[in-house]
């Protein structure tokens, strides 16, 4: 691919919340500063010249930027579509109406962690649930497509059934995505409070599989307990049947991002993705994004990751699941092992079973 199809932009280094598991903050490799409007607009012109199709606006909290409309105008003028990832607490009628009028917004994603203030606010801060739900309803009132992300952690995993009913039945959200708190950012210092235990994981997998049947097609996951439950079932079935290796199995193939998209930090540094914020590939408006995309050696090394066989790792020695395993997220792998080119211990099926877990 000659240019990224999508670019993830951390347009704000600030947030009005301090969620206990936030991957964004407390990263010693990152300088938390905001770029002025004109720097982003200049970059959007470059994205437009490269025919980038979509940008996602994230942070931090994008709605904290007073120039958000100016940035969106720049995106529109450069023939792109956008989505916004938000905590939902700052969305009012004025901005929702503006977003709707652009006809270029794929969705605004709001994070919801519980079906009640007690659960949601436990990791996100007092009053955040009411404001987030108000934000969702404001977006709905203006016909802005709403997506919801539910991040599972120790304090909400037993509420997932209620969360699903609240989002899908009561609020009428068409679907929501799930993942789990990962050992990144603020989560590192709050790990004991927020990370899922094996028992939590078991509960989450069981409940999410049941909910997936109750609400077919309306609960999605590309990581976390629901994804693990489905994929680990496939791996176990393949192992028992002595099936040949999965097409992407046996190597560090999990990360597809470097082939389709790229990210930019709030300070303008170009990075592979937000999970690898320390891997600086260049700087916007100084380095050609085309050149970075095609020729940056770090990015190309990340692309070559998929040629690394799992059986080379001491961690994987003797594992029967190697032919079916993809090694999972390099960002989590790095935070746990200091090595991007290592399978992630966090999403290891053999480790999960050895610690007493069961495949649902």
């Amino acid at each position, binding site marked *: *691919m000659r*240019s990224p199809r999508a670019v993830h932009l951390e347009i704000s280094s600030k947030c009005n919340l301090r969620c206990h598991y936030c991957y964004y903050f407390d990263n010693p490799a990152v300088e938390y500063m905001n770029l002025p409007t004109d720097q982003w607009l200049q970059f959007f012109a470059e994205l437009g010249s490269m025919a980038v199709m979509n940008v996602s606006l994230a942070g931090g909290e994008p709605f904290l930027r007073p120039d958000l409309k100016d940035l969106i105008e720049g995106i529109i003028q450069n023939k792109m*579509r956008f989505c916004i990832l938000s905590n939902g607490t700052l969305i009012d009628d004025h901005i929702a109406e503006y977003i709707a009028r652009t*006809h270029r917004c794929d969705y605004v994603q709001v994070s919801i962690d519980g079906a009640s203030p007690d659960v949601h606010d436990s990791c996100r801060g007092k009053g955040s649930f009411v404001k987030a739900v108000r934000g969702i309803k404001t977006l709905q009132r203006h016909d802005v497509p709403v997506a919801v992300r539910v991040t599972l952690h120790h304090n909400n995993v037993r509420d997932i059934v209620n969360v699903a009913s609240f989002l899908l039945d009561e609020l009428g959200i068409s679907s929501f995505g799930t993942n789990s708190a990962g050992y990144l950012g603020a989560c590192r210092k709050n790990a004991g409070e927020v990370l899922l235990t094996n028992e939590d994981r078991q509960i989450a997998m069981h409940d999410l599989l049941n909910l997936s049947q109750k609400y077919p097609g309306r609960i999605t996951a590309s990581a976390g307990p629901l994804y693990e439950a489905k994929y680990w079932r496939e791996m176990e079935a393949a192992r028992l049947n002595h099936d040949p290796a999965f097409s992407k199995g046996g190597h560090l193939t999990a990360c597809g991002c470097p082939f389709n998209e790229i990210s930019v930090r709030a300070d303008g540094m170009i990075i592979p993705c937000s999970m690898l914020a320390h891997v600086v590939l260049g700087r916007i408006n100084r380095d050609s994004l085309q050149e970075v995309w095609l020729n940056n050696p770090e990015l190309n090394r990340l692309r070559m990751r998929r040629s690394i066989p799992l059986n080379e790792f001491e961690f994987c020695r003797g594992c029967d699941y190697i032919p079916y395993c993809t090694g999972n997220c390099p960002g989590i792998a790095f935070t746990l092992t200091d090595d991007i080119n290592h399978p992630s211990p966090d999403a290891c099926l053999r480790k999960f079973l050895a610690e007493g877990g069961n495949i649902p």
Partner: protein
Amino acid sequence: MLRVEFDDWAILFDPDSAKAIGINPTGVAVWKLIDGRRGIEDIVSGIKEMFSDVSISAEKEISDFIEEAHKNGFVGYSLDSET
């Protein structure tokens, strides 16, 4: 908006509707000849100049491609002022 993916294959993308269609190298060549002034016959002639061994069904295929692009909102037709 034309987005070349790799080699000469491309995506035609309409950011307003979010519609996207994949087009092959010939389609890319046709797209680049659509300039608001050329008619279909001019475009066919242009393709014949660019490629050797153009099939006799080229005019129909090009018309079909343009019609498909029109159906998806990527092009419009204008009447010749002399007609």
